[in-house]
């Protein structure tokens, strides 16, 4: 493209803007990078083939599976703008602590918030909820190294409506076992 300024004021702007720019070759191609696709989560199921197991090992695995089924998917819920564990949810934290203490696995605690307000401030509120659960687990004997507290803020609502019931459903901390 050629630009021919007719008047002085415009040419001064252009001259000052191009002082250090070498002429670029014309191009018909799109210079932009192709869109990047974010990778999927790397955490796999971790199931591996094992050598033949003795009967007690099979029993132990069955017991662990039953214990896991007892805590898996059990979440903790929070009041509006609150991060303290309600009395009704203390048993849930205790159950997770019991599992973690017995089987020494690792857990990711994801805090969540309802949809109202700043994304980043909500992320921090969700973090406060996850940390609150983490502290409860630690008091119950779970080692800090077993726990990672993170937040999904308002980004991953389980309920997508806008009723108070939906909001309450989303003020939540989930336990993800690895």
């Amino acid at each position, binding site marked *: 493209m050629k630009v021919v300024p007719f008047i002085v004021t415009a040419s001064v702007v252009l001259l000052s803007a*191009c002082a250090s720019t070498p002429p670029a070759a014309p191009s018909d191609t799109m210079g932009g990078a192709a869109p990047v696709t974010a990778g999927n989560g790397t955490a796999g199921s971790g199931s591996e083939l094992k050598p033949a197991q003795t009967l007690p090992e099979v029993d132990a695995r069955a017991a662990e599976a039953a214990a896991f089924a007892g805590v898996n998917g059990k979440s903790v819920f929070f009041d509006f703008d609150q991060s303290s564990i309600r009395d009704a949810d203390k048993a849930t934290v205790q159950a997770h602590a019991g599992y973690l203490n017995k089987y020494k696995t690792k857990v990711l605690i994801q805090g969540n918030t309802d949809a109202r307000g700043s994304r980043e401030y909500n992320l921090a509120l969700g973090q406060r909820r996850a940390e609150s659960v983490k502290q409860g687990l630690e008091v119950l004997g779970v080692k800090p190294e077993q726990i990672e507290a993170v937040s999904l803020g308002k980004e991953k609502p389980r309920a997508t409506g806008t009723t108070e019931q939906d909001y309450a459903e989303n003020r939540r901390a989930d336990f993800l076992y690895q």
Partner: protein
Amino acid sequence: MYSFFAVARRFLLCCLLLAAPLARADLTVDIVGGGINRYPLAILPLTNEEWLPDAVTSTVKSDLAMTGMFNLLNVPATGAPLDASYWQQQGARAMVYGRVTRLDGGMLRVTFWADALAPREQKLAMEFDVHPSQLRDVAHRMADMVYEALLGGKSLFASRIAFVIQVGKEWRLQVADVDGRRAQTVLRSNEPIISPAWSNDGGRLAYVSFENKKPIIYVQDLSTGQRKVLANFKGSNSAPAWSPDGRRLAVVLTTSGNSQIYLLNADGSGLQRFSYSSAIDTEPVWSPDGRSIAFVSDRSGSPQLYVQPVDGSRNARRVTFQGSYNVSPSYSPDGRQLVYVQREAGRFKVMLLELASGDSRQLSTSAYDESPSFAPNGKMVLYASDQGGRSVLFAASVEHPGRVRLGVIEGEVQDAAWGPYNP
């Protein structure tokens, strides 16, 4: 002449970098309040424009309307008289007119003028020789030149915006022209993406991705598409903000057990803690002089804005005192103002704070605004908001009431960030 040639090429390459063929939607200009103090301007259609693949005049008009600084007179698409006294009688202070002619080799010559009418004085006369695919770049350039010739000061169309849209179960980080057109997806993911932040050279975006079950900060080079992890510490990693020199970022980490602001180098090294509270400190933004960081903290019991010097003094000064929920600050380019979001009676609205006086005023009239940011000339603010149950992008003038809905194409707009002037 050679140097003009060079700068023109550079300008066009920058734009071509981001030209992506996506569906189109035009701006919806929603100016309220009568046009008092707006510059009355007649923009006549370019002669022969009806043969062009991409109309130039309509883009110039929507650009200038979007700024909120002009009162564009009604001009018929055909038969508008090229008559200064006629447009002066209609109330115009200036008129823009021109023509398109065909050159050898498929190129087009776009020639245009801007004349003040009383007394008549030529303010601008320009000629662009372009390939037909570059007409939209010419239109944005024309809008900038008309703006600067008639109003003085810097215009804003030589910049880009970034935003996140959610389309079904997919999140897309996009970069587009200021009017929302020619959006190009730079990242797509099946998990949320939030908090895009421009480096000051406009070459990189930092953002937060949830693709690995937790928030992790990435930096992506826009010209190569290469991305790398900037911060993946135990806990959450979020709210990236570039220092004005592009060497450092402020981020929010939770390694202390609460959300606190840290500084690190652009390569991820040199981590140091910046904020010290037992509360939530988040949403850092650097002042344009690089000396301070504004952020949100609820150390007083409710989220409020604070400003703290970067010199290590830890001396945070609270700057908002009205309302119980003030979040998402963004500095004006001169560092004198902050835009932010205030919640009041369940409504979230964009506010403008004068830092020297502490006065703040409402910029938007809507109910659910988020992530405001300034244009690089400081005259407009971009933000996401709800309209008819859908989340869309708006731009509002800082000086005049009204707002413009940007032509963003599909999905729900989430975060948005106005970038710096194109390199």
